[in-house]
C-alpha cells in the first residue's frame, strides 16, 4: 500500500513538473507554429541567476522571483533574436535560429561563467521530508504538486476568462483572422513568450531543486521532456501538453520502479520506444488541437 502511495506521489509531482514544462513550450508553438529550441535555456537562465545572486543577503524568495524574471526576459529575448527576424521566411529557418540561439546561450554561459557545475541556493524547506499517509517523501515533491496545481488552474482561468486569453486561443487557431479583428499581433506573441518564460522559470526552481547545481547543459533534459510530452499530447493542444506531461511522468516512474538495476541506465531508450509505439497508434497525438484543416 505504501508503495502505491509512493508511486502516486512520484507520478503526480514529476507529472506536475513535466506538465508545466510542456505547457511552456506549447503556448509558443500553438500560436506561432514555432518550435523553440532555446526553451531549455530559459531554465538555465533561471539557474544561473540563482547562482549569481546567491552571495547576496536577499531572502530566497526574492532570489527566486529574480530567477523567474530572468527566464521571462530570456524568453522575450528569444522572440526578438531568434524569431522575429526570420518569422516570415520559413518554418525551418525558425527552428534553426532557435537552435543556434540555444547554442549561443549555452556557450555564453560556458565562456562567461563556467563550464563546471555551480551550486545554487535552495530553501531548507525543499529538502525537509514529510510523512504523508505513511510514506516519507521530500517536501519538495508536495510543493511541486501544489505549485503545478495552482499554476495550471491560474493558466486555465486566464485563457478562458480574460480577453487576452481568448485572443491568444484565437490566434492559435488562425493568426491572421485574429489580427483582422484588431488583435495586436505583437502583444499576443510577446505575451506568449512571457508566459512561456514564467512557466519555465517556475519549473526551473522545482527542477533545479532536485539537482542542486546548474551547468550550461542543464536545460537539455527539460527541453526533451517538454518535446516528448508535447508530441504525445498533440502539438497544438494545451490540454494535450498537460496530459502528455503526466503520461510521460507515469511512464518514467513506472520504468524506474520496474526495470532491473542493470537496465535502469537505458531507461530513456525504453521510454522513447514506448513513445514511438504511442505515435504509431496516434501520429497526431492524443488530443486533437484546434481544427484548422492545415497540416500542423
Amino acid at each position, binding site marked *: 500500500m505504501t508503495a502505491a502511495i509512493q508511486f502516486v506521489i512520484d507520478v503526480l509531482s514529476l507529472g506536475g513538473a513535466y506538465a508545466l514544462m510542456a505547457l511552456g513550450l506549447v503556448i509558443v508553438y500553438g500560436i506561432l507554429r514555432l518550435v523553440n529550441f532555446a526553451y531549455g535555456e530559459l531554465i538555465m537562465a533561471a539557474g544561473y541567476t540563482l547562482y549569481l545572486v546567491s552571495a547576496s543577503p536577499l531572502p530566497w524568495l526574492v532570489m527566486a522571483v529574480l530567477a523567474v524574471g530572468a527566464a521571462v526576459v530570456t524568453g522575450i529575448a528569444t522572440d526578438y533574436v531568434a524569431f522575429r527576424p526570420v518569422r516570415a521566411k520559413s518554418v525551418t529557418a525558425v527552428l534553426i535560429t532557435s537552435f543556434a540561439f540555444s547554442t549561443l546561450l549555452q556557450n555564453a554561459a560556458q565562456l562567461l561563467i563556467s563550464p563546471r557545475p555551480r551550486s545554487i541556493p535552495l530553501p531548507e524547506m525543499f529538502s525537509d521530508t514529510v510523512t504523508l499517509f505513511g510514506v516519507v517523501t521530500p517536501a519538495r515533491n508536495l510543493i511541486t504538486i501544489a505549485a503545478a496545481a495552482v499554476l495550471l488552474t491560474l493558466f486555465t482561468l486566464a485563457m478562458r476568462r480574460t480577453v487576452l486569453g*481568448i485572443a491568444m486561443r484565437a490566434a492559435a*487557431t*488562425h493568426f491572421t483572422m485574429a*489580427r*483582422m*479583428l*484588431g*488583435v495586436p499581433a505583437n502583444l499576443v506573441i510577446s505575451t506568449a513568450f512571457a508566459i512561456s518564460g514564467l512557466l519555465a522559470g517556475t519549473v526551473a526552481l522545482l527542477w533545479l531543486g532536485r539537482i542542486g547545481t546548474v551547468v550550461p547543459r542543464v536545460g537539455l533534459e527539460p527541453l526533451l521532456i517538454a518535446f516528448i510530452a508535447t508530441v504525445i499530447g498533440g502539438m497544438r493542444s494545451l490540454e494535450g501538453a498537460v496530459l502528455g506531461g503526466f503520461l510521460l511522468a507515469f511512464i518514467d516512474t513506472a520504468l524506474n520502479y520496474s526495470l532491473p538495476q542493470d537496465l535502469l541506465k537505458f531507461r530513456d531508450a525504453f521510454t522513447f520506444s514506448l513513445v514511438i509505439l504511442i505515435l504509431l497508434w496516434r501520429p497526431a497525438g492524443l488530443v486533437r488541437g*484546434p*481544427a484548422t484543416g492545415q497540416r500542423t
Partner: protein
Amino acid sequence: MALAVEALEVRYGGIRAVRGVDIEVGDGEVVALLGANGAGKSSTLLAIAGAIRPYAGRVRLDGRDVTGSIPERMVRAGVAMVPETRDVFSDLTVEENLRLGAYVRRRDRAGVEADRAAMFALFPRLAERAEQTAGTLSGGEQQMLVIARAMMSRPRLLLLDEPSLGLAPTIVEQIFAMIARLAATGLSILLVEQNVGKALAVADRAYVMRLGRIAAAGPARELAAAADLKEHYLGG
C-alpha cells in the same frame, strides 16, 4: 465612411492579381464587386483590409491615406472584413467569438454588452447557440456569426467577401436580408459576390472585375439590365 481606392496593384511574387483598380464607396453606400473566379476581387478586399500589402496604389478612408496599414490599425480606423474563408475560431464558443470581435472596444464593457445583445436579437439562431463551439455550427450559422462578429467592432465600412458561398438558397436569402438591414443603418459596404442577382438587388452601385482590372462600372440597376454582363464573366 467613404472609401477611395486608386490604381491598386496586388502581386503574389510574379503573379499580378490586381492590375490597377479604382473603386469608390460613398458614405452609406452599398457597392458590389463582381467578377469570375480569379478576377482579383478577394485580393482587392484583402489589400484594403491590410491583410496583404499592396504592390502599388492608394487606399483612402474619408480622404485619409491608409495604404499598407496593418490589419489591427484598419480595424481601429473603422474597417471590418469578413473573409471568404469564413474563419470562425472553431474551438471558441459563439459567445467568445463575438467578444473577440469587440476586441478594439474591450474597455467599453457596457457598450460591448449592448452590442452583444443587439447581435443576438438580430441573429436569434446565434443566441440559441451562444455556448456552443463555433466549429459545430452549420455553414449558414457560421456566416451569420462572422458577420455579427465583424459588426461588434462598430465598423463604418464593412468588407464582405462572398457571403453566399456554399450556402443553400434560403439561407442566402436570410443573409442578404441581413445585409440590407445593415445597409439601412448607414453602414458603407463593399460586397464581393458571385451571386450577381442577389448582389445587384442589394447594391447601389457595382463594379465588374476581369483579369485584375475593372471592366465595367455603374449603378446597380443599369448593370443588372446590361446584356454584355455575361461576356465579362465568360471572358474570364
